[in-house]
């Protein structure tokens, strides 16, 4: 136990050093969101007895799939740190397990597991007493299942077939979860499926409800998982080795061509990227195809668009995963790294997306205008947003040659990575919105809109990224080298402003949305739909010739307010 406690203390010390600046903010946001979910789960314990079982099933899946989706799970204490100590694998695993209880995620989960105590108290004293060990064992099972699944995927990622297989499997599981309603309909379920009681996540509740065997089963499972993890830990020595078969010679003849060639080789040789690509593909196909079980093919054409959005989310930290290799870009300012990466992203993803979309839409026979409008809009949007988001929201990664035995772990800040992935999901969806709306309303005109917004996003976001790299390149390199962002965040910059500037900024950011959204955009939509004299939308009260100009003027005012706000808080560059 002494080893375990030392490790736990070591982790506390490391977390104390790590949680500063942006990482503290992401951790704080994560903890707040988690606390909200935990409170929701505990609340379930006061209601229907079936609901908490379903709730804990979701927590279990979160523990298993979350780290595989992004960041490879918490690895503040890497097993490699202890490889020279000669600890037996079981003791090492036990120590790492104890230290794995230290952290935000386990604490949040433990809070959620308070629901067991609530359920116990409602049933009687004995049940309440059982709830306490049940909570601990349940948490141990969560943590261990997470560690074992990450270790198994990590092993699979050492070979190309393994990487592809685990990508396909994980994508399918996540898609099935997203489409769980399909399975409910199939099984004629209306409430919570009884199966959730027999998942390991339900055993704690079973124990609390008087099925004492479940407590023993939890303990046994925890022991078995600990043994499995110990066995897997001893196999993880050494980093993943890419295959060393014959290499095709690089035939590029220009700077741009060279960047594309470099990126495409990375796409095909890096097994983590292989895994991400197949994950996105499998997710798109399974998500869109699962309603086929019900005999409904209406979602099938969306497999391609879903693949694009998911693939963009997986590559949200494009620059961060390459780490400090950015120095080469800084030293060759005349070559355009961004355009090359955009082209490479498209070459790796567009053919798959196009084939998938055309084939599946042909199967269902439509709706062609909508799907074909979405395709260029999303492809252009993603190829523009991926470099932009990865530069503006850069999460410092671990340099590829310094990564430890867990290939999924590309950064120490997995909270930041996950946030970035979700941000990318939302932003890429937004870039598809104009084309989709136009296609729904005007049919084939949507295709033109899709092509235009796609090209604009590709060109414009690429340009913004280039500018940012040019103006902030050394700062980005510094973030990657030190692993943390400088502490001069927006907040402290804001504090340096004068009182007048602060007031102006507050007004601009606080109220810019009012002219822009309701009085501008929404009012214009009402005018277009002929909904006149509508509540407080000024443009709808205007005489015919002035309606659009008034809405446009409001929108312009809103944009100008945001522009002023940004201009006020932007630090004047010192150089």
């Amino acid at each position, binding site marked *: 136990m002494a080893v375990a406690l030392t490790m736990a203390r070591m982790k506390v010390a490391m977390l104390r050093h790590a949680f500063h600046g942006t990482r503290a903010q992401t951790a704080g946001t994560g903890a707040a969101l988690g606390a909200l979910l935990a409170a929701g789960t505990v609340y379930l314990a006061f209601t229907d007895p079936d609901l908490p079982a379903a709730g804990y099933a979701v927590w279990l899946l979160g523990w298993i799939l979350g780290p595989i989706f992004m960041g490879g799970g918490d690895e503040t204490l890497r097993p490699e740190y202890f490889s020279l100590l000669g600890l037996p694998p079981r003791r090492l695993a036990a120590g790492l397990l104890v230290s794995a209880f230290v952290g935000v995620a386990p604490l949040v989960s433990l809070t959620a597991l308070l629901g067991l105590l609530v359920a116990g108290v409602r049933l009687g004293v004995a049940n309440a007493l059982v709830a306490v060990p049940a909570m601990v064992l349940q948490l141990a099972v969560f943590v261990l299942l997470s560690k074992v699944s990450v270790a198994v995927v990590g092993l699979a990622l050492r070979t190309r077939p393994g990487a592809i297989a685990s990508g396909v499997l994980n994508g399918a599981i996540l898609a099935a979860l997203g489409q769980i309603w399909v399975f409910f309909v199939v099984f004629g379920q209306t409430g919570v499926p009884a199966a959730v009681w027999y998942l390991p996540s339900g055993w704690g509740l079973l124990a609390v409800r008087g099925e004492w065997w479940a407590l023993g089963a939890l303990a046994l499972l925890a022991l078995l998982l600990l043994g499995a993890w110990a066995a897997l830990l001893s196999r993880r020595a050494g980093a993943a080795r*890419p295959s060393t078969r014959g*290499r095709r010679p690089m035939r590029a*003849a220009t700077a741009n061509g*060279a*960047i594309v060639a470099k990126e495409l080789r990375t796409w095909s040789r890096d097994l983590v990227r292989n895994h991400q690509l197949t994950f996105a593909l499998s997710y798109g196909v399974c998500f869109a195809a699962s309603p086929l079980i019900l005999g409904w093919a209406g979602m099938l054409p969306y497999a391609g668009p879903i693949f694009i959005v998911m693939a963009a989310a997986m590559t949200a930290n494009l620059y961060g995963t390459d780490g400090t290799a950015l*120095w*080469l870009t800084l030293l060759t300012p005349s070559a355009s790294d961004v355009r090359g990466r955009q082209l490479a992203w498209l070459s790796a993803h567009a053919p798959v997306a196009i084939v998938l979309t055309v084939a599946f839409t042909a199967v269902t026979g439509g709706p062609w205008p909508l799907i074909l409008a979405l395709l260029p809009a999303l492809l252009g949007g993603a190829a523009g947003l991926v470099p932009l988001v990865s530069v503006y929201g850069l999460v410092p990664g671990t340099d590829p*040659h310094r990564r430890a035995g867990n290939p999924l772990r590309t950064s120490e800040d997995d909270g930041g990575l996950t946030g970035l992935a979700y941000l990318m999901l939302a932003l890429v969806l937004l870039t598809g919105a104009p084309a989709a709306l136009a296609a729904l309303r005007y049919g084939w005109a949507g295709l033109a809109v899709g092509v235009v917004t796609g090209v604009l996003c590709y060109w414009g976001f690429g340009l913004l990224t280039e500018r940012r790299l040019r103006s902030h390149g050394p700062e980005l*390199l510094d973030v990657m080298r030190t692993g943390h962002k400088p502490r001069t965040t927006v907040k402290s910059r804001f504090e340096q402003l004068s009182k007048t500037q602060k007031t102006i900024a507050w007004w601009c950011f606080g109220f810019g949305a009012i002219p822009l959204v309701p009085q501008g955009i929404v009012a214009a939509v009402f005018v277009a739909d002929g909904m006149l004299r509508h509540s407080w939308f000024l443009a709808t009260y205007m005489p015919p010739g002035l309606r659009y100009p008034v809405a446009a003027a409001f929108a312009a005012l809103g944009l100008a307010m945001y522009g002023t706000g940004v201009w006020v808080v932007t630090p004047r560059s010192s150089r």
Partner: protein
Amino acid sequence: MTPALEISRLTKRFGGKLAVDAIDLSVPPGSFFGLVGQNGAGKTTTLSMAVGLLRPDDGSARIFGEDVWSAPERAKAMVGVLPDGLAMPERLTGREVLTYLGLLRGLDKEVVARRAEDLLAVLELDGAEKTLVIEYSTGMRKKIGLATALLHAPRLLVLDEPFEAVDPVSAATIKTILRGFVAGGGSIVLSSHVMALVEQLCDHVAVIDRGTVAAAGTLDEVRGARSLEETFVELVGERDSGVKELSWLSR
């Protein structure tokens, strides 16, 4: 004559710590310039700022008269850099890295192929034709880094610890290459904490201590009649007592 590298009043602060304190240095063209100092003295920070990889809080750096920050394209075309411990395009082979970087530097495809061939052969990396950079040993990483620095035939080389983890045979090769580079009119700035190496190679030397220049000039001006190591220890070494021993290590 325009200095190959001119650093004036470069300053960098990390948090509350002043890492580099208004350093001035001038590297004459055609010189082999050694930068020596203890760990953490500010050598890497100074060199990073001098080539445009780290933004200084104050001061400027010029390469053959071109400001690194206001005319980066012209300045960076004239310099080859070997940074310490930074990543490379890891999933490429050595030859691919050189091809990629040569094209990025705007060189012609055939020229790149020829130079890559030469560099790989001279640095004995051509045996590892199928090995990706991520699988390279530390010494091999240094060598491929040096190859990328030399590829576009720059007029100035800035090398951060070029001999660390390099085996003696390769080190001899690298020394020959570097001497040839200087003999051909090139200039080199090199940082190291191996005094013997600096004495052997360099004609100019600067001693960096706690972010400032403790001494600078030609090798003979700095070391006088003594060895560089003695001068160095006197300049930056422990001012108080001698070195403590670990009594519990002896049986």
